[in-house]
């Protein structure tokens, strides 16, 4: 096709608790937050408003009262679009798919500039009530739901199996949370920034055994706007930008578990998506300088970094404990602080990964900067990594 997609601008709300209780006298509303980010991101990019042809939104949580949010935003911004205006949904992969929808409009020549954006507000709903909804997204409502299997209970079962099979330990897994908090301490967008020790992590109350409070994602609100552009536009702007070098996707045709036993902790979809992305980019895992992976729990970061070949199979937790995945280590992973510490506004979480990678590859990551970062990787997933979406990005300066 001869077209190449780039990221030329970003703007993000610091992850935290922003949603107002329904009875608050004064409300913080999603469209006001997002409109400001659109203006910030477009200014950051330096593109013309009139060049924007696509508005690709991550669907809002059901707690957002304003419905048809994408078309409402097109109205709120008075933004005519000749590419498309759409809302995308796909569990934790939502923002990854919204990014792809925007990118595809550029690849198809429908838009020169496309916005991928979204706002995830959910914290005014309690965790116990939110889980009544989320458990229906991560299993069979009739044949698994009645047992009370929560989303992260599946990851906890990954952890139990991983420790059993690979001789790892809760302490090794917990070291991922310590590492991610150290990264978050350097990230103004992160929800939790106070450094913690391994003892702090191990002292937290259990959430789903063997994972305690600091090893699972917090409840979070967040909002992001990314500006994507065809590479001719990016070149004309005269600023550093990020080239989307390749992508890989795979859905294994199963959700959580199927009746056919497999190696649950191998994350075969991440393996397949990673292979496709590496092959399309003509690189190997050793070429990656920094990776921002979708990993709600410590164990998930270990398993996906193994599946993507960034660390050896069965040794991911040990590599993390030994500092290989820390800033300054062999392959820094989740320099933003990851989902445990940067936070997890689920429907926009992959957008935050793109923001971090754009900062790293444009040399704007401040104290988190990975020196001479040229090639970076992101992942997004749904289920228990039953589907994976992987992107490889390249710095153009």
């Amino acid at each position, binding site marked *: 096709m001869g077209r190449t997609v780039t990221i030329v601008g970003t703007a993000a709300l610091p992850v935290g608790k922003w949603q107002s209780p329904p009875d608050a006298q004064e409300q913080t509303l999603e469209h006001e937050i997002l409109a400001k980010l659109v203006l910030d991101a477009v200014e950051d990019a330096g593109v013309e408003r009139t060049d924007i042809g696509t508005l690709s939104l991550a669907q809002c949580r059901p707690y957002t009262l304003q419905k048809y949010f994408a078309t409402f935003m097109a109205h709120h911004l008075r933004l005519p679009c000749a590419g498309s205006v759409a809302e995308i949904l796909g569990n934790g992969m939502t923002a990854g798919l919204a990014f792809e929808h925007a990118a595809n409009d550029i690849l198809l020549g429908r838009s020169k500039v496309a916005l991928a954006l979204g706002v995830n507000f959910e914290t005014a709903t*309690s*965790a*116990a*009530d939110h*889980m*009544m909804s989320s*458990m229906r997204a991560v*299993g*069979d*409502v*009739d*044949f*698994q*739901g*009645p*047992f*009370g*299997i*929560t989303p992260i*209970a599946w990851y*906890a*079962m*990954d*952890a*139990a*199996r991983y420790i*059993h099979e690979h001789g790892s330990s809760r302490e090794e897994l917990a070291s991922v949370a310590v590492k991610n908090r150290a990264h978050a301490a350097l990230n103004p967008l992160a929800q939790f920034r106070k450094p913690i020790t391994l003892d702090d992590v191990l002292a937290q*109350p*259990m*959430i*789903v*055994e*063997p994972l305690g409070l600091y090893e699972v994602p917090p409840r979070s609100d967040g909002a992001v706007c990314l500006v994507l552009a065809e590479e001719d536009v990016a070149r004309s702007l005269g600023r550093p930008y990020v080239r989307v070098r390749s992508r890989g996707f795979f859905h294994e045709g199963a959700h*959580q*578990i*199927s*009746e*056919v*036993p497999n190696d*649950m902790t191998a994350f075969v979809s991440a393996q397949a998506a990673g292979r496709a992305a590496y092959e399309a980019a003509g690189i190997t895992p050793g070429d990656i300088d920094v990776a921002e992976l979708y990993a709600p729990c410590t164990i998930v970061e270990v398993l996906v970094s193994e599946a993507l070949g960034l660390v050896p199979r069965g040794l991911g937790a040990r590599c993390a404990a030994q500092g290989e995945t820390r800033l300054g280590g062999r392959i820094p992973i989740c320099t933003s602080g990851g989902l445990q510490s940067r936070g997890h506004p689920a429907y926009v979480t992959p957008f935050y990964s793109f923001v971090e990678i754009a900062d790293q590859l444009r040399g704007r990551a401040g104290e988190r900067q990975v020196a001479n970062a040229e090639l970076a990787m992101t992942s997004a997933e749904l289920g228990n990594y039953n589907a994976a979406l992987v992107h490889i990005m390249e710095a153009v300066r």
Partner: protein
Amino acid sequence: MLEIFTVDGPRAYPPRVTAFTRTFWDALSDGQFRTTRCDACHGYTFPPKPFCPHCWSRSVSWAELSGRGRLYSATRVHAAPAAFRADAPYRVGIVDLEEGPRIAVRIWDHDAIALDAPVQIVALRYEDGPLFAARRLGVPG
């Protein structure tokens, strides 16, 4: 036959029953554990389905399962959804049945069961209907 335990009160989050899955739930109430098996490729399916997801044949039959298997993984849930607050903390797991299928279960045991240990499926008879769970094999009721 599965061991049957009578449980006080209704199920916290009851399954919906269809004309097709009623066969499964009614059998479970009577202590029988069954699912569908493909007449063409002989693959088991769980949950039971009126077609075979492995080869898309529409010809399937009900097959009895022994209820014996091994515990593939397990966890104990402390932070529970609202409907399960009264149960928390509770154990759930993944069992590989001896006939092959892998299923998710509630664990009917106060103590943790070692992974790969043999387990048996039991029927839980609540006031409003049945559920299934796994417990250590050979432990007297």
